[in-house]
């Protein structure tokens, strides 16, 4: 496993950092945002009804999910106090009967997975809604980490959502931009090369150098989608070579050691 990971690690490393930063722009003007709008308030009210039975802290979380980080911070000292008192007793911090058991609850979340039957729309599963629901669940879990349990295992797996659902959702708006950009760059490059060297478009395609140029342009368009991406890529490169440098340090400062030995 490790070996193949090694082989493919560079693209992997890019993905997590690249993708979050690369999308907000198109989305601002695009429809996913529009259809998210009406949904959010629905979620708010739903959350309230779900957690209404909870105690003060969880109720606060429900009323204002946006302020969740703040709320969880506020509840932190309480937890810690709880913990210090219990550890001074000598018993484990597991003695937290006082703490509210907050679990993610949603009518569509059944037995550790999303009940796909409830996501039917026109006798087809509405995968977009599933993605929304799972995103909300993870968001919630991030501010309210849940205890793991063997009795109620989580069986939901994102891979049950078909690939075209993801592509439809994320790729199309982005692809339009990238295609447009690549086409423009390609056209001007061809023009430039033609005007400088006199090699026509047809000959360029057969030329190895021009093929390489084309490849570089395509990769460049894919990797550098925004100006900040250049910085991100640089940082990534530093990060990947950092560990090597730490190891090589032994071999670099060797000269003083061996000269002393002489």
């Amino acid at each position: 496993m490790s070996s193949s990971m090694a082989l493919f690690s560079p693209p992997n490393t890019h993905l997590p950092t690249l993708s979050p930063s690369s999308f907000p722009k198109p989305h601002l003007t695009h429809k996913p945002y529009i259809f998210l709008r009406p949904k959010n308030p629905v979620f708010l009210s739903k959350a309230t009804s779900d957690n209404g039975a909870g105690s003060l802290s969880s109720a606060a979380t429900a009323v204002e999910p946006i302020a969740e980080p703040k709320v969880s911070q506020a509840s932190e000292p309480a937890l810690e106090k709880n913990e210090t008192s219990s550890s001074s007793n000598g018993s484990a911090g597991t003695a937290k009967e006082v703490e509210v058991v907050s679990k993610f609850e949603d009518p569509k979340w059944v037995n550790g997975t999303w009940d796909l039957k409830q996501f039917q729309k026109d006798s087809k599963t509405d995968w977009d809604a599933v993605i929304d629901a799972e995103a909300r669940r993870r968001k919630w879990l991030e501010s309210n980490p849940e205890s793991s349990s063997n009795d109620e295992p989580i069986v939901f797996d994102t891979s049950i959502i078909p690939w075209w659902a993801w592509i439809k959702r994320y790729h199309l708006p982005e692809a339009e931009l990238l295609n447009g950009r690549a086409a423009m760059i390609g056209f001007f490059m061809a023009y430039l090369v033609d005007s400088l060297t006199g090699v026509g478009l047809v000959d360029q395609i057969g030329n190895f150098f021009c093929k390489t140029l084309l490849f570089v342009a395509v990769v460049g368009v894919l990797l550098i989608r925004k100006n900040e991406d250049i910085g991100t890529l640089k940082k990534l490169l530093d990060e990947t070579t950092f560990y090597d440098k730490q190891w090589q340090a032994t071999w670099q400062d060797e000269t003083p050691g061996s000269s002393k030995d002489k």
Partner: protein
Amino acid sequence: MASIALKSFVGLRQTSPENPHFAIQGKPIINIQPHHHQRRQRLHIVAGKFSPKVTGRNLRVAVIGGGPAGGAAAETLAKGGIETFLIERKLDNCKPCGGAIPLCMVGEFDLPLDIIDRRVTKMKMISPSNVAVDIGQTLKPHEYIGMVRREVLDSYLRDRAKENGATVINGLFLKMDSPKDGTTPYVLHYNEYDGKVGGTGEKRTLEVDAVIGADGANSRVAKSIDAGDYDYAIAFQERIRIPDDKMVYYENLAEMYVGDDVSPDFYGWVFPKCDHVAVGTGTVTHKGDIKKFQLATRNRAKDKILGGKIIRVEAHPIPEHPRPRRLMGRVALVGDAAGYVTKCSGEGIYFAAKSGRMCAEAIVEGSENGKRLIDEGDLRKYLEKWDKTYWPTYKVLDVLQKVFYRSNPAREAFVEMCGDEYVQKMTFDSYLYKRVAPGNPWEDLKLAVNTIGSLVRANALRREMEKISV
């Protein structure tokens, strides 16, 4: 495919195996005149061959620190006919440590089976959204991860060194005087306790020809050769005695929790020990928040350790990378003192013992079984061999940590990936036997595609999550 990948890693190193003389030589490649270079190398060999004989006695080597590294080094030295002194401050020290050893260590170091408290055959990885994946289904019946208590393992290795002729000194190493030239001995200063409890001990000195520093993360030997510092992670661990009915679950199972709540750059764990469990977590970047992470780890394992009593709380540093200088003159560092702990898994016992042994072997060989003095060149052979053998392992784990521990979506993808049987097989093979078995190219490709798929999906969800908060 695997081999190609590994080769490319080795290639990243400045001192790649193809030209090992740079390692001996050590100057940046650019400044080296070919002629000069040739001459220096020849000189080196000559020096080794005609190094002065030790007369009237055998070569004396002190091993500072009696952990796995020190114990293994002392044993090998003593067996090789070298007069060995092992200095250890606390002979019953139970170091805070996960205590997991790979299967191959049992064979390579000939460990008796009764020092292994538990045989872990199941691992559970638990993702930030609590998806639990069982790893270890691919293990064969005789395969397991051994859990040891460090006090037991350490004293066993020390005793064996003693049986082979090493002198074990219960003392605290203070400092050492470095000699002016290559033949006069090092003078070590230490406080001898001689089995007495309490008191400051007697000040003693010891003359030796070479020193192996195996005294852990806060190494005094490293300080005295000005070895430089490394970044370290802090590991926090609570030993919790849990009710018997809960312990049944942890009989042969270890748990790993990943998530931003548990640790921003490492994992939280529940490891079974002899009669209790160790619950802990570690971090490099947010050391101040370690208590919070520990609380979160306990919270994630809540139901499973309910009603437990904390019997011990411990914290200790874990090196992140080797020290800038791992040897000088006739002093070499091994184990944690040198910084040999892997990233990602945080494993160190096996590598400590192995490096101790490798260093001792270099000394035995260089001194022709204690008959000749050694010099830095002899010790360098150990470093070279070490880096050549294990650098790929360290690098792969570093890459894994960087890719998969960087954010919650990456961790989700990691756990998803660990559900794959092929991954489990490869992971365990490389963990248990410390060799990277050549994979099946087709499976590798499938794995890569699946992993990228998992990462993309998890990150897509993350984007969605960000939108919710805005």
